[in-house]
């Protein structure tokens, strides 16, 4: 594994988990989770529903007990939470939890009162981009705006560590994009963030490191870019050629070559290869020599999604 490319990595982790286990009756929800999160780092826990994401986060937040393992959050065992510790963490639960009758500003004022050194309420309104809705009651906000207020409430105590449990589940694409930009903006505040998600793009867009969980275990943990390379998945070269083309004349290309008939009788070809440069050279050389017109040429690196599917598919 390459070294973690972060300055923060030299300091003490804000979250440290070793061998974390948790069962519900017969179901083994967590089967030995190991993870460290460092200051100012955004780590995404990515996995399908039921993988153990929320269980992990709720143990770290002090809501759930654990069966085994060592857990330290900001130097405190969350099974024995203290008021001083609560001052330093911010929590956004999986479901939006707002008092519908209070306005954006009132909601933030209420929670600000719980902390000894809260952040300025108007500044938080700006951070979550709700300036125009400051006087609007929570029940009248859109789903995306409500979730941003939810994040604002978690920020109002000025925490060192923020938990975001599936912050954008159920959003339409534009609301999701807005939420991402807001969360990415938190990086400038220097907060450590642990977020769970089942969206690959979300992990890719937001996280410094991604932990992929499946069936209660972390099956991969790295930067979004390295996750793809580490898994040694092949690159895909795709193109289309006229339907009557004789593909057998393409020599020595790739490990697999699949084709299907596309629109207008053309042939769509996909080559999966571990030598994309050499194969691309052969394909274009072959096309030039044979005078065949290649359309829609595309080279696709394995996406985080491909890695994710490979790791989480049973």
């Amino acid at each position, binding site marked *: 594994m390459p070294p973690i490319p972060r300055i923060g990595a030299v300091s003490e982790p804000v979250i440290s988990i070793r061998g974390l286990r948790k069962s519900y009756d017969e179901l083994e929800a967590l089967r030995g989770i190991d993870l460290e999160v460092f200051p100012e780092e955004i780590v995404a826990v990515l996995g399908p529903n039921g993988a153990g994401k929320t269980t992990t986060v709720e143990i770290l937040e002090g*809501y759930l007990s654990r069966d085994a393992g060592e857990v330290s959050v900001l130097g405190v065992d969350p099974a024995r939470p203290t008021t001083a510790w609560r001052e330093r963490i911010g*929590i956004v639960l999986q*479901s939006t*939890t707002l*008092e519908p*009758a*209070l306005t954006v500003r009132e909601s933030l004022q209420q929670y600000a009162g719980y902390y*000894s050194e809260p952040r300025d309420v108007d500044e938080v309104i700006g951070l979550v981009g709700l300036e125009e809705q400051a006087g609007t009651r929570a029940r009248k906000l859109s789903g995306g705006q409500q979730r941003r207020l939810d994040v604002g409430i978690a920020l109002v105590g000025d925490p060192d560590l923020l938990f975001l449990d599936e912050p954008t589940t159920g959003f339409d694409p534009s609301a999701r994009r807005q939420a991402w930009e807001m969360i990415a903006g938190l990086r400038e505040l220097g907060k450590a963030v642990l977020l769970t998600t089942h969206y690959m793009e979300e992990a890719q867009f937001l996280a410094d490191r991604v932990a992929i969980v499946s069936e209660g275990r972390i099956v991969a943990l790295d930067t979004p870019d390295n996750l793809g390379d580490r898994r040694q998945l092949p690159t895909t070269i795709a193109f289309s050629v006229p339907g009557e083309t004789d593909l057998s004349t393409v020599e020595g290309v790739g490990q697999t070559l699949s084709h299907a008939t596309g629109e207008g009788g053309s042939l769509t070809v996909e080559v999966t290869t571990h030598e994309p440069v050499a194969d691309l050279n052969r394909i274009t050389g072959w096309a030039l020599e044979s005078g065949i017109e290649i359309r829609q040429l595309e080279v696709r690196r394995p996406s985080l999604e491909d890695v994710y599917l490979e790791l989480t598919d049973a």
Partner: protein
Amino acid sequence: MRSLALVLHEFRFAQKVFWRNPASVFFTALLPVLFLLIFASIFGDDRIEELGGVKVTTYYIPAIVTLAVISATMVNLAMNVTIAREEGLLKRGRGTPLPPWVFIAGRVGNAIVISGVMLVVVTLIGKLLYDAPIPWERLPAVAVTLVVGATAFCCLGLALTVIIPSREAASAITNAITLPLYFLSGIFIPESEIPDGVLSFANHFPVRDFFEAFFAAYSPNTTGSGFEWGELAVVAAWGLAGFLIALRYFRWTPRNR
């Protein structure tokens, strides 16, 4: 000092939330007044011979005050704390530095203050519309009955959240408990119309005792200070039982998630 300020902080927001919730305002503030107007218009200027010839309208003032206090405390808390629990608001509150008891104290304080407001409103309506006497000379008994009863029924409301499984069940369960007791305890129907057996059954529950304490404090036929210590002790005992149940079994996390 900090704790007291926090309780006031929570109280302020509980007030805002209460008055902005149309259901709370209707059921707690308007419905008792509506009941008073309806009962008074039905029974008019009748007198209850069994109770020393007291006017029916005078009888209904402490009856409706009892109902209003129970609505503002037990019913209000059982419904709204259950909803807050199921919506995850209690869980979220537990994730902050706010001491859990402050969260409860702010809402209990709100319920007791609204009880006081309703007592004043109902008493004034009685005076203005029906010439029901204001019990100035027994004001200490009225105040003590209010505080003991409101506190006890707040505890019972918190205890009720323990058995209410979901927000949908909240109003069904609280109504199923309160409505029959209002009928049996002489709140809706003058107790002179209720068979003795039924009344002695109702005597097993705190609604009846609470009403009797208020009636003694309000009735112009009462001689003395109007304190019904025996009835108040029963109400307080019920409250203590509710408090202990809530202390032991109260849930901060949603049951239906």
